[in-house]
């Protein structure tokens, strides 16, 4: 691979995070917020956007500073940069909506230890130009938000009979309370993984016949 090829920005740069290496469904990174805050669609969306912002901002800064960060202390530097942006998000959400802040609880601050963000900083932002990192981080962020929404929507519809707070089935619907409890998070994510595995198997089986 030449340097020139490495630098080019393609659809793949963006799509990598969105689908092929989706952080949740394929890489299984950052599972804690994925399971903990997806008991309603609105929480899932807020968490996804907050994480995307931190991913973008830290990715950009690390990519800009990639030549001036010494190799030995890079992880510590990354963590401090990420922690700074998480503090900003934390105070911003607190200022915008206290309800949302209370619903997400400590998990906003726990974005710091989301392995996905540190992983991207180490494996992508520190090696690529800022523009490329930004595009990749956007794809990753959208992929993460998409995965959170997948879980949040299913859990809210089944567990509370509503979507984004709007009642769907009327008063005669008996909610599956287990879905908004911790156990439901594991079960729903497991089911989504099964579905994707099944789709992949079908796809590869189809290819081998052709």
């Amino acid at each position, binding site marked *: 691979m030449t340097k020139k090829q490495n630098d080019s920005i393609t659809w793949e740069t963006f799509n990598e995070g969105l689908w092929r290496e989706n952080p949740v469904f394929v890489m*299984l*990174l950052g*599972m*804690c917020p994925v*399971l*903990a805050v997806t008991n309603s669609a609105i929480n899932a969306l807020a968490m996804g956007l907050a994480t995307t912002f931190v991913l973008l901002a830290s990715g950009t800064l690390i990519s800009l500073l990639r030549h001036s960060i010494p190799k030995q202390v890079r*992880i*510590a530097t990354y*963590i*401090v940069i990420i*922690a*700074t942006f*998480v*503090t900003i998000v*934390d*105070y911003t959400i607190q200022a915008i909506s206290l309800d949302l802040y209370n619903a997400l609880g*400590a998990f906003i*601050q*726990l974005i*710091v*230890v*989301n*392995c996905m963000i*540190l992983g991207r900083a180490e494996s992508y932002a520190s090696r690529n130009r800022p523009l490329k990192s930004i595009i990749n981080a956007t794809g990753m962020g959208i992929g993460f938000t998409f995965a959170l929404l997948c879980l949040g929507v299913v859990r809210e519809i089944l567990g509370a009979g509503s979507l984004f707070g709007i009642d769907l089935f009327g008063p005669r619907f008996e909610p599956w309370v*287990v879905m908004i*409890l*911790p*156990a*439901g*998070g*594991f*079960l729903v*994510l*497991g*089911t989504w*993984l*099964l579905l994707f*595995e*099944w789709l992949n*198997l079908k796809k590869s089986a189809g290819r081998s016949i052709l």
Partner: protein
Amino acid sequence: MATESLSFIFLNAVLANNFVLALFLGLCPFLGVSGKINTALPMGLATMFVMLVSSICAYLINMVLVAFDIEFLRLIAYIAVIASAVQLVEMALKKFSPRLFRSLGIFLPLITTNCAILGLALFQTFKEYNFLQSLVYAIGAGTGFILAILLMAGLREKLELSTMPSITQGAAVSLMLGGLLSLSFMGFAGLGG
């Protein structure tokens, strides 16, 4: 100042609000290192040790931060302490048990990004526990983590011996197991608050 008794805090952290199965903290090692009991136990012990050290440090640091009115630096200060504590454990393990050090591999430095540890430090600050309560809370959370990861490892060792459809091999079945474990831990919910 929280007034909960020490035994309540301990039981609450181990069973009713188990860090892994009820609060979803520390899932990466829970899913990643729970393949065998032989590696799950040392991983649990290392995590518990880091929890203890960082809980003590976090308590002292919070006192300083509050005294100088600079609480917005809390997150950065905590994460720096945790990273140092993990480094300490890593050096100790490398010296005393190189074999174990190798078998834990990448998951040892990843304790830094284990949300259970930062979560513990943050929760004890939110709940305004005093020094002794924080200590008991850390021990309880560590015990809860060991319990969860050992149960999971035991189940997965049994699973190795059984035949499964090829579609369920991999992460999906681990998550399903986690769901069932979590469901059974819900039975303890009445114990805590």
